[in-house]
């Protein structure tokens, strides 16, 4: 009996032009979505590639001068010397800047610390479009590099990207609403419900079979299109052989299924109210609006009102105050002047000025750290608020999880920045002692500059989304049980 209803429903749905149109629309939206997401990831990677090439060229220039100098000294049998900091090109026979670790690590050579995209980045652009995925690391204070501004039209940023996560969070519920709003009311209005109920089947089994047919159809489209999306973005970005990408993809399919089940359950629940089709649409549209527009806006409002991020404007003011204070401590204004323009300084004192400069960077860093920490704390508190309030709307839960699965969440970015800050320290520790000891840098050392590697901690990724995941599972099970238990009291006859 269930099989009969199931296959009957499938045939009916497939014969309805409206349903077919909707399913096609969903497929097209997913194609468009993956294309946009893939472009976003490509753009980001391209940006990092250009930066890496630029920095490699800069390093090569320094190295070339150094190698030439080494050959020159070796051929004459004279000892190599440590070059004072100087912005002018070296004269032949004089030591180049490449010998000076302070000049090299401080301004000539920078490490491009890249946050690599995950195998599923293209599925949810998330916060990726706001910031670069690479950081230029040198010996300047670390807050210099924490902005990571990427160029984009603010209008486009405001609207957001039409990616797979948009299709899933915003559009999928609309399609589900369209598939479920008249599951019972439609039959009742056309008078077929009472007829069907003369058969030896309970209303709940009848509804279950109808629901299953719709879930099957929709998930078929999602899985087929999702797989095509994965193959497309995977082959463009070259991550198809990465097992991590596929486990992320499996996770994506699973949470999407859960999210869909929430909306299907809601469809059953509204059907169980035994109202007209129009009323059902009105209620479902209202809930959709509440879940994907109003609630997120209110939650965001609550988070930013409870824990307002200190304004970045104030951060700038604090940075300048710290800079002025550091300057005052140096006392000697002439000295301060030369920290910015060492080429104007009398030769002998050159090193001292770089030392002063580096010392000032350290002082600045110490002064700004508390302000920066305040930022972080507020951000974490805001996310704490969102963490609790997310359960008011499965859309927020879903956004959380999709951003995490695709690797474009704020948390992952912050973890990356922490890695960069730690690396910044290693970088400084590599160059500073060599500079202070006036060690003449050797060209063979250039291959051994510290390298940045972002290492993903998988249990952290899971940890960041486990609460959202469990919450969604509970919500989905609860709403479906509640909806089906309500069906028991459903009046089948007209007027009931």
């Amino acid at each position, binding site marked *: 009996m269930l099989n009969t209803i199931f296959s009957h429903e499938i045939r009916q749905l497939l014969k309805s032009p409206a349903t077919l149109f909707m399913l096609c629309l969903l497929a097209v939206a997913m194609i468009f979505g993956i294309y946009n997401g893939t472009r976003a990831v490509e753009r980001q990677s391209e940006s990092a590639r250009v930066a890496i090439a630029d920095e490699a060229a800069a390093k090569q220039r320094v190295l070339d001068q150094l190698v030439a100098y080494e050959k020159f000294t070796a051929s004459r049998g004279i000892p190599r010397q440590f070059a004072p900091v100087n912005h002018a090109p070296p004269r032949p026979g004089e030591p180049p800047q490449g010998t000076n670790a302070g000049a090299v690590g401080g301004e000539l050579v920078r490490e491009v610390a890249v946050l690599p995209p995950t195998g599923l980045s293209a599925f949810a652009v998330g916060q990726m479009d706001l*910031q670069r995925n690479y950081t230029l690391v040198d010996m300047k204070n670390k807050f210099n590099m924490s902005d990571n501004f990427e160029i984009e039209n603010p209008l486009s940023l405001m609207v957001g990207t039409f990616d797979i996560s948009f299709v899933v969070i915003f559009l999928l519920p609309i399609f589900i609403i369209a598939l479920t709003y008249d599951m019972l009311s439609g039959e009742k209005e056309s008078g077929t419900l009472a007829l069907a109920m003369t058969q030896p089947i309970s209303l709940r089994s009848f509804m279950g079979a109808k629901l299953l047919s719709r879930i099957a159809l929709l998930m078929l489209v999602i899985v087929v299109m999702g797989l095509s999306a994965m193959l497309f973005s995977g082959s463009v970005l070259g991550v198809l052989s990465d097992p991590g990408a596929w486990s992320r993809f499996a996770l994506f399919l699973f949470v999407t299924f859960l999210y869909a089940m929430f909306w299907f359950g809601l469809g059953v629940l509204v059907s169980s109210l035994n109202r007209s089709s129009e009323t059902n649409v009105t209620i479902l549209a209202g809930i959709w609006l509440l879940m994907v527009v109003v609630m997120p806006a209110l939650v*965001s409002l609550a*988070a930013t009102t409870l824990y307002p*991020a200190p304004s970045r404007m104030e951060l700038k003011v604090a940075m300048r*105050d710290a800079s002025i204070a550091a300057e005052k401590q140096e006392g000697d204004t002439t000295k301060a002047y030369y920290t910015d323009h060492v*080429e104007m300084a009398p030769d002998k004192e050159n090193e001292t000025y770089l030392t002063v400069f580096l010392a000032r960077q350290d002082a600045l860093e110490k002064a700004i750290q508390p302000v920066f920490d305040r930022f972080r704390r507020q951000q974490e508190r805001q996310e704490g608020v969102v963490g609790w309030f997310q359960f008011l709307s499965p859309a927020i839960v879903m956004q959380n999880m999709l951003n995490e699965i695709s690797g474009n969440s704020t948390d992952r970015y912050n973890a990356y920045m922490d890695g960069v800050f730690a690396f910044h320290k290693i970088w400084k520790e590599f160059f500073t002692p060599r500079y202070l000891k006036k060690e003449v840098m050797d060209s063979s050392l250039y291959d051994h500059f510290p390298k940045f590697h972002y290492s993903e901690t998988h249990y952290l990724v899971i940890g960041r989304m486990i609460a959202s995941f469990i919450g969604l599972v509970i919500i989905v099970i609860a709403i479906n049980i509640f909806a089906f238990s309500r069906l028991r009291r459903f009046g089948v006859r007209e007027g009931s």
Partner: protein
Amino acid sequence: MIMEIARKEFVCLIRDGRFKWAIGIMFLLLVTSFVTGYQRYESLHSIREASQQKNSEQWLNQDRKNPHTAAHFGNYAYKPQGPLAFFDNGITNYAGSVIWLEAHKTNFAQNRPAQDNGAVSRFGDLTPAMILQILLPLLIILMGFSAFAGERESGTLRQVMSLGVSSRALLLGKLLGTSAAIALIIVPVVAITTLVLGFGLPADSSHLGERGLLLLGFYLIYTLAFLLLTLGVSAISRTSKGALITLISFWAMATFILPKAAADISKMVVPTPTYSEFYHLARQTSLKGLEGAKGLLALPQGRHIEIERRNLLKKYNVKSVQDLPIYWVAYSMQIMEERDYSIYQKFLGDLRRIFFRQEAMQDRFGLVSPMISLRSLSMAVAGTGLVDQERFNQTAQDFRIGMIRAMNGELIENTTMKDPLYIGGKEVFSKVKPYQYSEPTLSESLEGQRMNIAILLAWAIVSAVFAFVAVNRLRVQ
């Protein structure tokens, strides 16, 4: 007759429990959005003013030092907001709010507030503008979808038509009745806005009244277009269920799907360069010369400076820069600054044109979604759109080159190669006047908006014609 129909429609609507709820919720959301919009504006405004003020103090009170080093210390320009930002904050959250203006480097406006707000803010802010652009149309649809189709289904349409009511009267009556119900929301909104603008805000904006009236006008046209469209669709649909599905699909398309699709398509057609590409190209150009430029700008950097050096030596009739009566190092730095200023002006101008072309492309989608046209108009009038951001960027860059000219000029005039030491204090730094943003006049704000105004009006007119035709051909069964 019209009035009677209107009264009937109005009474039916406000007696319906569902609409009481809907109107109540709308009202609550609006009040919330006004309160928070006001708070956000006020705190941002005061922080901005304080920061800019503090910046000037820091600039003036920095240690006595060489003027060029002072230029390295530099200034920050903070993006101000017009008072109407509380109503529509536009792109504010996604555009840089601070620019560091320093020697040698041309920086972008950084610190997008969205970076600090967490991912949930990407769903969009709750602002009065957002509520009126997205939620109000849905309310209109829910109020009006059964206006004709519902009466036809219940059989009352036949009775009404049998009384000899003209279709025009029927449409106008229904329009008036529904409008009256909508007015229950609109009128308080207008009242609150006027009140806030009139008394509450630390406003120094010009043309505030005109801007407010324009906003009111645009939103009314938008509302009217949706009303007429809803009534028209209700008249041509066989069932009210069909009318509702059609209208809600259109609404979802117009307010969610098309705006996003438009943004992505605009980026596809006119790609935005990345940060690294931008600087790579600008630096290369600075080194190698600007192709197609006239004069020294087309030459490589080294030759440019060399020619300037020779000209200078010739002018002062000396053999070496050591003998110049001016400070050659500062002079050559200024040559570089002017060169880079011209080059970056070109590249920043190109970028600006890309942004505006993308915006124009998105605006074209207004033909299929009136919300896109209204959104652009609303931002432009509220002073929170792209025009305002770009104006801020440009005025900040102009301020920067002025500051550098003044500081390097001090060095060039007052020192020589033999005696390069020059320490200045407040008396020198005060030659740089504090950064001031002048907001665009109303006509400047509306300059790029002609197409949007035309499209929005066209929506209202076409909807009206459609509604009249639909009601004229109304069938009672």
